[in-house]
């Protein structure tokens, strides 16, 4: 045995030893002696058969596999036939018509386009939704024959903002918690003195048919500058200027920013846009006001209106305007209106039979309703999401 070990390779010796024992060909011991005369090398035969490409039974294959004498390899074969789209040249699908392939359009085959996906998002410029609504309202006013008032003056004196409108100096609106008063410029530099005198008179003791408020009117109060709380301040300036000339009827409007020193919440801001319309003519009545309001609001899509008596310091009668909102299925307050008091118009010098009817609405409210915005702070200001500005529809108010 030892001699055999020495003469043979160790791997050969090991395999040989187990195989001869298995087949009982040799008597194993110190001396190795033959037991059979002939040995058939079955394994060699099998391997030769495999080499020649013959098939073998599973158990033989397994035993050969176990001994790592063969390796199983997967062999894939394909049967190829000419299909219906067979072409001698390789066909590419076009995804687009291009300058390069335009002339060969007849031979082009287009890849199916996915119409279920959206198109390419575009680079575009955008207008702000609030200002889109403003433009539509401006057009509505112009179609109704109203002329725009110049409102580019945010700083106003209390005189034009309150006193000229017959709003008394002790009125709560003039308190600092509702109005932004100014430190610089703190007081107005000049006022039309003769007109101021007439306004002082009508506040203190009346006249023009009124018994007045009966209080001490203070010039210092009137002089105080503020950020205008309504664009009616501009309207009073315009009416005063109108009174200085031979009278012609006028229809004015404005849409611009006003300021309230109020707490900011979901529907209230310190600054917002007021829409104001006024008609100045001889012999106007509440009926005229209602008529103009019907015209105006029907253009905004609201044709059912109701009017509730209300109070404004400078209009009498005053009406709160309610419109029926078809979408919400209820009546909602849509604005405020009234006829300016004689104590406001007569000291200006307007003829006695001249009446002024006016109304005001906010710009933000219809914009929020139109664009489905819930919180006013999402509508304008620097915290607005730019996405909102980029994906809002054209405003069709006044068109249908």
């Amino acid at each position, binding site marked *: 045995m030892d001699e055999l070990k020495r003469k043979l390779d160790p791997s050969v010796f090991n395999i040989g030893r187990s195989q001869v024992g298995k087949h009982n060909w040799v008597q194993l011991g110190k001396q190795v002696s033959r037991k059979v005369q002939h040995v058939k090398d079955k394994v060699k035969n099998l391997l030769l058969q495999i080499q020649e490409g013959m098939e073998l039974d599973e158990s033989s294959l397994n035993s050969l596999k176990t001994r790592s004498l063969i390796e199983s390899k997967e062999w894939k074969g394909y049967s190829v036939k000419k299909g219906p789209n067979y072409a001698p040249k390789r066909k590419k699908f076009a995804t687009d018509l291009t300058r390069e392939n335009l002339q060969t359009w007849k031979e082009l085959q287009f890849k199916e386009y996915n119409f279920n996906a959206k198109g390419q998002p575009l680079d575009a*410029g955008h207008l702000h939704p609030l200002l889109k609504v403003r433009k539509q309202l401006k057009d509505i006013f112009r179609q109704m024959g109203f002329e725009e008032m110049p409102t580019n003056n945010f*700083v106003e004196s209390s005189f034009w903002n309150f006193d000229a409108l017959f709003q008394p100096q002790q009125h709560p609106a003039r308190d600092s918690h509702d109005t932004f008063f100014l430190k610089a*410029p703190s007081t107005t530099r000049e006022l039309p003195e003769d007109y101021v005198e007439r306004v002082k008179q009508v506040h203190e003791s009346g006249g023009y048919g009124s018994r007045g408020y009966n209080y001490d009117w203070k010039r210092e109060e009137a002089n105080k500058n503020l950020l205008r709380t309504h664009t009616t301040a501009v309207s009073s300036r315009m009416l005063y200027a109108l009174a200085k000339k031979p009278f012609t009827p006028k229809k004015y409007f404005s849409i611009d920013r006003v*300021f309230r020193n109020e707490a900011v919440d979901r529907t209230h801001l310190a600054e917002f846009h007021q829409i104001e319309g006024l008609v100045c003519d001889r012999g106007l009545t509440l009926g005229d006001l209602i008529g103009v309001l019907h015209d105006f609001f029907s253009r905004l899509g609201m044709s059912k209106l109701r009017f509730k008596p209300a109070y404004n310091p400078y209009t009498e009668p005053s009406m709160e305007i309610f419109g029926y909102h078809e979408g919400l299925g209820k009546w909602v307050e849509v604005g405020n209106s009234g006829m300016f008091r004689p104590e406001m118009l007569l000291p200006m010098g307007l003829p006695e039979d001249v009446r002024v009817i006016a109304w005001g609405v906010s710009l933000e409210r219809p914009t929020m309703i139109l664009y489905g915005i819930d919180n006013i702070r999402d509508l304008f200001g620097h915290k607005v999401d730019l996405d909102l500005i980029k994906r809002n529809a054209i405003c069709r108010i006044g068109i249908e």
Partner: protein
Amino acid sequence: MPTISIGRDRLFAALGESYTQEEFEDLCFRFGIELDDVTTEKAIIRKEKHIDEEADEDEEIIYKIEIPANRYDLLCLEGLAQALRVFNKKQEIPTYILADISKDKMLQMKVKPETSEIRPFVVCAVLRGVSFDEARYNSFIDLQDKLHQNICRRRTLVAIGTHDLDTLQGPFTYEALPPTDINFVPLKQTKSFRADELMEFYKSDMKLKKFLHIIENSPVFPVLYDSKRTVLSLPPIINGAHSAITLQTKNVFIECTATDLTKAKTVLNTMVTTFSEYCERKFEIEPVEVTYDDGKSYICPDLAVYDTEVSLSYITDSIRVSLEVEQVTSLLTRMQLHAEPAKSSDNQYAIKVHVPPSRSDVLHPCDVMEDVAIAYGFNNLPTRSPASIKPLPLNELTDLLRIEIAMNVYSEVVTWLICSRKENFAMLNREDDNSAVIIANPRSADFEAMRRTLMPGILKTIGSNKDHPKPIKIYEISDVAMLDESKDVGASNRRHLAALHCGATSGFELIHGLVDRIMEVMAIPFVPVNDNTGYYIKLSQEPEFLPGRQASIVVRGKQIGNFGIVHPQVLNNFDIPDPCSFVEIDVEALL
């Protein structure tokens, strides 16, 4: 609109005064005609023959005057000069009358029935004792041409034939015969032609070939004869040579054949009213009697005056000038309309107008009212404008600019007017120059002041949209406020435009490009530095921008804005993580 060419000097002589060209144009303007062109006879010929020659010193100046299409009476110098003389009160309105002769002394025109197949109507008249010179003769021919072109509709409706009466013998006949039966020597020819041969002959005549179609396919051609069978004319083609008018002609026979009798009468009236001023007995026209086979007959010309009554209030209400009846009648007289006061049926003031035969254009009181207005002077009439609305230029410009900026792929924002004092100055690296409006009772620092520029609002918008995909391009066109001693309240608004680009790169050239685009849409040209006729850019030193990457925009010598890369310190103050470029312009300076 028809144009007539008349010699200037002849015209001024007829008007009785000379005018400078400007003065004459003014007269035309007030009357309602237009001096279209000033040229010379020879220049016209040169133009026709395409000759390039210098003008002679003494070439006769020709005025080409445009005449309204309904004023046949103005289509020749005689008619126009008379109208202007009457307008200028230099002449009374002539009264045209028929010569007082009995029917049996009148010339006769007998119409044969066959004419109804081709050209049914004829009217005639005689001008006695006229004296022609070359100019008058040419004018006479020109008027016929103008009438043929206009009211006669290129001779299809009416054709005029004028003849030397002394070469003819009445009575005349107006017949329609087969062309082969008509034979005569036509004008400008020496040999005689048969009518059908004449048609062929004229096929190559530039002037006459366009009239051939009017009769060429008819079995009978219209033709006028005198009692000796001399052909007066083959209307509407050509007159006979025998009766051609010369400068020596003393008595003129005019015949107008037509398919429209009303127009024929108007044409004849125009001929006789304009040229009867040359008759021995001025404005007197000798009538002719036209008789038909069926016994129907009429005397022509029909110089009947059209009488109409117009209420004074109709005139004064229409022109909104309160005039007395006498004023109206004297104005109408200047327009060749005889007028006299009358009282209408309901006792209102009225004017009775006698419209002469030369004014076939007057159909309705409105024609009378127009003439009153012309004589009064259109430019003297009082005006009344309907109510109309004027826009506010600053607001209109703002809206137009907003759209332009959006078209440059910028998104619009609307930011707060109220801000903190820091945001106005310190956070922008600026010194507080106390020019801002300060609020006395702010609830918090956020309500301390009014923005002095649009910059803080724009930067705060970027700061609040950090996650928005870049590049971010936003803009705002709105008011800022500042102290202003010239205003009654001591402060004023100013309209500003601001735009910002924020991205991986600052976009400085893009903001610069936007500035150029704004100037382009405002039609402000780019000019060299210090040129005050447009805009230029020059390096600036503002603290809110990066040094070396900022500039002022100077328009027509005034600085109206700045642009630049926003200073990193400023970006930091507003918590903006990416570079930005910014521009702010005073829009009111662009107005």
